[in-house]
């Protein structure tokens, strides 16, 4: 008869251990460098840290815990209110327009377009460039004195006016234009990938059922792009919340403070204004906003995939 039950042999034990060993450096890095740092920031937001967190250069304790008063101060600042409102407007427009343009271009490109191979990289390349690179060009383009308006005037269309970037009420929309320029091609690629993944037989079936092109897209194709929409939404919203280079390169937050966003607010209070406590508090609020958007998505996604 068979021998009594034996323990797993060494190789099997190793094989079950190795995957966890392989994963562990990433997990450790994540715990320290992401979640540890988040906790750190939360802690700093409860202190009156100004130029450095907690400690001075010699390592001595130089802060007091002041509870929630940084948060109280934060929400009293009109500056923060502007930044939050701006983000709401900016993110909404940015995501909507990117998705709209991305979808439009993807659908158009999917019509057996000659030169698709040329057009696609043209639409995609802005994602490759940071605003450190393109900032000056954008600034010029939007500037009525040297940019589009001036060019139109030189070309004879003297009544043309495009001075949004100088206008407190419109400057934010300039940020939207530049941001859309940067990411809409990427969204296009995601939608295009989604379109190419749709089963062609379904389309044929729908046509047999007598669906017009418009109906075909509205009722059959676009609903099937739901995963692409979700991915686009997550990527775009995280880009919107992190938008920093864009503001610095184009407007510096101006005119006045008409284009401040939470990311610029946080940077400015943490590093330029020596009010690290308030900066940390704003960072915590930002993180909570991100979590509010991302966590339900992650939850739904990962549950589905189980």
């Amino acid at each position, binding site marked *: 008869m068979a021998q009594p039950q034996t323990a797993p042999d060494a190789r099997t034990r190793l094989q079950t251990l190795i995957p966890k060993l392989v994963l562990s450096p990433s997990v450790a890095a994540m715990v320290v460098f992401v979640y540890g740092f988040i906790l750190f920031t939360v802690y700093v937001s409860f202190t009156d840290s*100004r*130029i*450095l*967190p907690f400690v*001075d*250069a*010699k390592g*001595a304790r*130089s802060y007091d815990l002041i509870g929630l008063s940084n948060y109280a*101060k934060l929400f*009293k*600042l009109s*500056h923060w209110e502007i930044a939050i409102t701006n983000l709401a407007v900016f993110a909404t427009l940015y995501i909507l327009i990117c998705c709209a343009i991305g979808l439009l271009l993807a659908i158009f490109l999917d019509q057996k377009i000659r030169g698709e191979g040329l057009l696609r990289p043209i639409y995609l390349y802005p994602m490759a460039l940071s605003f450190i690179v393109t900032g000056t060009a954008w*600034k010029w383009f939007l*500037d*009525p*004195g040297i940019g589009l308006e001036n060019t139109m005037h030189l070309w004879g269309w003297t009544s043309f006016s495009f*001075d949004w*970037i*100088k206008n*407190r009420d419109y*400057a934010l929309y300039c940020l939207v234009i530049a941001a859309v320029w940067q990411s809409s091609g990427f969204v296009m690629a995601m939608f295009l990938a989604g379109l190419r993944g749709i089963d062609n037989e379904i389309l044929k079936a729908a046509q047999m059922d007598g669906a017009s092109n418009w109906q075909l897209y509205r009722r059959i194709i676009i609903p099937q792009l739901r995963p692409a929409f979700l991915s686009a939404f997550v990527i775009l919203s995280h880009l919107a919340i992190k938008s920093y280079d864009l503001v*610095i390169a*184009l*407007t*510096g*937050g*101006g*005119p*006045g*403070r*008409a284009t401040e966003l939470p990311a610029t607010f946080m*940077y*400015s209070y943490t*590093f*330029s*204004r*020596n*009010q690290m406590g308030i900066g940390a508090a704003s960072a915590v609020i930002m993180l909570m906003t991100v979590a509010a958007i991302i966590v339900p998505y992650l939850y739904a996604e990962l549950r589905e995939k189980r």
Partner: protein
Amino acid sequence: MTFRAKLIFSTAVLALAAGTARADDDSVEVLHWWTAGGEAAALNVLKEDLEAQGIGWQDMPVAGGGGAEAMTVLRARVTSGDAPTAVQMLGFDILDWANQGALANLNDLAEQEAWDEVIPAAIQEFAKVDGKWVAAPVNVHSTNWVWANKSVLDAHGIAVPANWEELTAAVEALSAAGVTPIAHGGQPWQDATVFEAVLLSTGGSDFYKAAMIDLDPEALGSETMGEVFKRMDFIRAHVDENFSGRDWNLATAMVINGEAGFQMMGDWAKGEFLRAGQVPGQDFLCFRFPGTADKVTFNADQFAMFDQGGTVSPQQAALAQAVLSPKFQSAFNVVKGSVPARTDVSDADFDDCAKQGMKDVAAAAASGDLMGSLAHGYGAPASVKNAIFDVVTAHFNGEFDSESAVDELVDAVAIAQ
């Protein structure tokens, strides 16, 4: 397999190679934001000076935001326990870092070189903390200059204005003639530069000190302050429509090209005129903001010396000494457009505007009219400075009228303190 092997190998090599480059002990590491052609070349004088003494120079330039970016980097470096030897720094940043205990004590050297006698007291306040020298001042910029295109002024029969009323008359005359009277760049620090000049002109030195340095709520909320904001309204009404976000040098170019009459800007604007081949007194004019003739608001670049484990290293001392040597002070400032921080440097190599500046600084230092510029971090701590920027810029862009601006200013300063 071979490809993968190569990949791993080259990655490993790169990672190893990456690990090397660290500062060796015989050198100084200098964090600064002087990266533009002229000023960087000027700094090279210092580098060569040190290299002649066998001291290496580890350059660490970080431009952006008038030093804001550099200050962020500095924080990262200090936090990592790897502070640079010397850091270009302004006003209250020096005091803040000194209060953190991060700066070295240069008193031995200062005594030997008699810095106390040659550096104006107003600047010493920011280079000496608790009786200890912590920074080596490089230069003094005056921020209350006005730059004008001489031919534009001549064409419309305008003389150099001596007070606010003459300025308004001149501005209105240009405006009537269809010339943009004032070239301005709508960035917070530029708005504030104009604001503090107007404030000094309107209220005089005592008011400036009370409002911008002592942050006296009474001064901040006074009627004089209301008048200052009204005058800002006047200036706002006479800049061109595209001022928002413009870099200062583009505004300067407008004056150079004769598109605008005046620009209110610090002495660094001079470099732009000189580069365009213009001659002071012939093509362009420089004069103190009307009503601030014998007064100077200053911005002084300094090298704050970071503590290197309790002592001042010989390299650090050599750097500080070189910075304050009359030779460097002259050579650097001739290029930079500013005037030497030392008051005993010969003005032989300087141009007319700079000679005037040196006289003004010396006179103002003697009379107590040499005051720190708020716009450049010599008035109030960063939090307050930026709070004032917020109000000035918001008002300048029409977010609120001059009366509510006064109230906002009092509130903003109170919150930020």
